[in-house]
């Protein structure tokens, strides 16, 4: 299978603490992959390493954008460069720009695909005007797809929780990624919203051809939409496989689902 993301032997140390230990993971083209594990297992740290927020202590992060067959090493580059290369993410605790409008939030996602500099913005020549118009149009189109079009001019902070989560996805999509990293997209959503989210994520994969790697605690959601699942605990990978394999894996049940069943 064609590969979108390949992570090899990734380790991350904080001082003396090993948060990630020799992790391998890969996401294929047009695949939905879930990363699960108990709280504190290192899932978000894993995302932060991939997206350049922390430089990993050891290991490689390799990506292959659409249409390219070679893998490109991206560890150690800045978060904004990672985004430019086509990886976009959402955050576990929503990090929108609260005092900007919904549309502007999405337009920020367009930033790295636009070119206007100070001079261009001040003089507002034809290319800048066109670029700006297109950004507005594209952003609006994304909002329509995500189902937030009616809120375009609303401040992001005034949206409902579920809508804010969706806006984060919209904003990430505006950066034209080939791989979307979703950090607990269903957290705090009601069953209805979760079902809609399930639909939305599948649509993003099917219609936009974007691969998806997500961290999620909602097992129903994970099992229903993932092609493959990786399980981590204490920074190590303890299992990987299809939802069915994971469901019946005794190690996983012991380390993770057992706990979850009690909760």
């Amino acid at each position, binding site marked *: 299978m064609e590969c979108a993301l390949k992570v090899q032997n990734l380790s991350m140390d904080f001082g003396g603490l090993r948060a990630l230990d020799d992790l391998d993971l890969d996401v294929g083209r047009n695949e939905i992959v879930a990363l699960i594990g108990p709280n504190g297992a290192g899932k978000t740290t894993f995302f932060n390493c991939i997206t350049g927020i922390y430089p990993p202590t050891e290991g490689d992060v390799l990506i292959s954008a659409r249409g390219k067959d070679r893998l490109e090493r991206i560890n150690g580059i800045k978060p904004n460069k990672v985004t430019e290369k086509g990886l976009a993410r959402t955050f576990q605790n929503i990090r929108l720009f609260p*005092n900007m409008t919904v549309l*502007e939030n999405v337009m*920020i996602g367009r930033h790295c695909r636009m070119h206007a500099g100070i001079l261009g913005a001040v003089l507002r020549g034809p290319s800048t005007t066109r670029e700006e118009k297109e950004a507005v149009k594209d952003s*609006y189109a994304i909002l329509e797809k995500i189902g937030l079009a009616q809120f375009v001019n609303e401040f992001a902070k005034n949206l409902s929780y579920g809508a804010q989560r969706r806006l984060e996805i919209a904003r990430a999509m505006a950066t034209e990624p080939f791989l979307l990293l979703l950090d607990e997209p269903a957290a705090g959503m009601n069953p209805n919203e979760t079902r809609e989210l399930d639909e939305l994520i599948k649509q993003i994969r099917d219609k936009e051809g974007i691969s998806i790697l997500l961290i999620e605690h909602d097992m129903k959601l994970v099992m229903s939409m993932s092609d493959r699942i990786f399980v981590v605990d204490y920074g190590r990978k303890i299992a990987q496989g299809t939802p069915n394999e994971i469901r019946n894996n005794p190690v996983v049940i012991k380390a993770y689902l057992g706990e979850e069943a009690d909760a």
Partner: protein
Amino acid sequence: MIKLNEIKRAFLVSAWFIFLTFPIMVIRINPVEHIVEWRWKNMALVGIGSFFLSFVWNYLMKQKEPGFKKTETAEKTDTIPPLPPARRIQREKRIYIPALVAIGTLTIVFPFIFSMYQTNIMVSALIYIMLGLGLNIVVGLAGLLDLGYVAFYAVGAYAYALLNYHFGISFWMALPIGGVLGAVFGILLGFPVLRLRGDYLAIVTLGFGEIIHIILQNWNEFSFGPSGIANIPRPSLFGIDLSVHSSTIYIYYIMIGLCIVTIFVVNRLQNSRIGRAWVALREDELACQAMGIDKAKTKLTAFALGATLASMAGVVFAAKTTFVNPASFTIWESIIILCIVVMGGMGSIIGVIAGALVLILTPEYLRAFSEYRMLAFGTMLVVMMIFRPGGFIPDVRRIYKFEGVKSMDKS
């Protein structure tokens, strides 16, 4: 309705403040004649004043509370009707355009209907408008609290003064050179502070401002120390030297021109790719980077642009006063500019203009007030932050209309 326990509370507050201010407000020592003056009247004033202010405070706090609750409930409901923005802007425009024409006319004829003294004051106010708009980019839009902003103002003023002293460079040459120097200094200052967050940034920039001030004060060979540089020429009009009177008017128009250009530039930038990146940086630095925005570049452009504006204002300042010395560039100058931005409304152009006019003109015309100016500014900063953090004329984000886009999608 004032309740009994509120009155009781006010009494307690009043008693507390009488206690608190007793040594400073009531007793005054005269070290020369070794007598102690007891000013009991002040005690009464503090008591009565704090008694009533306690009610005002409580009232304002309560006003703040329901507002807070309102946004909270709004967050929970999913069905917020989209704003009717188009209507609101149209309604504003009907007042907007005649007002603009009136202000424009007044601006043009100002130096001919008012005295030179008034024109001079107006030039100061205009310089502060420019400084305010510059700092507004850094603090209001990009959210970087720069307490050393005055340093760039000094860079411009000294650039003109020194270039003129040593090389006889004229005002019109110094203006762009000052602007470029300002940008260079802005970037030089920006680099080391790129990774600092809000409060550290504030104190480091304050430090930079002070370092520049101290250097100007002490490096006699370079800056002529505390005595400063005098006899800086006023700008000449096509090589003709003007009389003091006409050159004041001339500087007034130069400043008007510079302000208009500044407003134009800031306004264009605000709703551009760059401006949005600044605001996003202010809102959430990490998310901003994760969305593909180069944090370093964005911060540096904000610093550089703010510094350029301050530096150019500095060149005009030097030309206006024909004299510069370090005393004009203290930390308090930075704080006054910050007050202008905060009071007017962070991020809002009209707000900053209004803020500069009010804060600079009021003490000029109310001499009695000028002694209490800094006290009032301090109070204002605190009160504004608590009750109106957006300023009196808050920034409004741009509203986009979408009928066109929708039909385009359908076709």
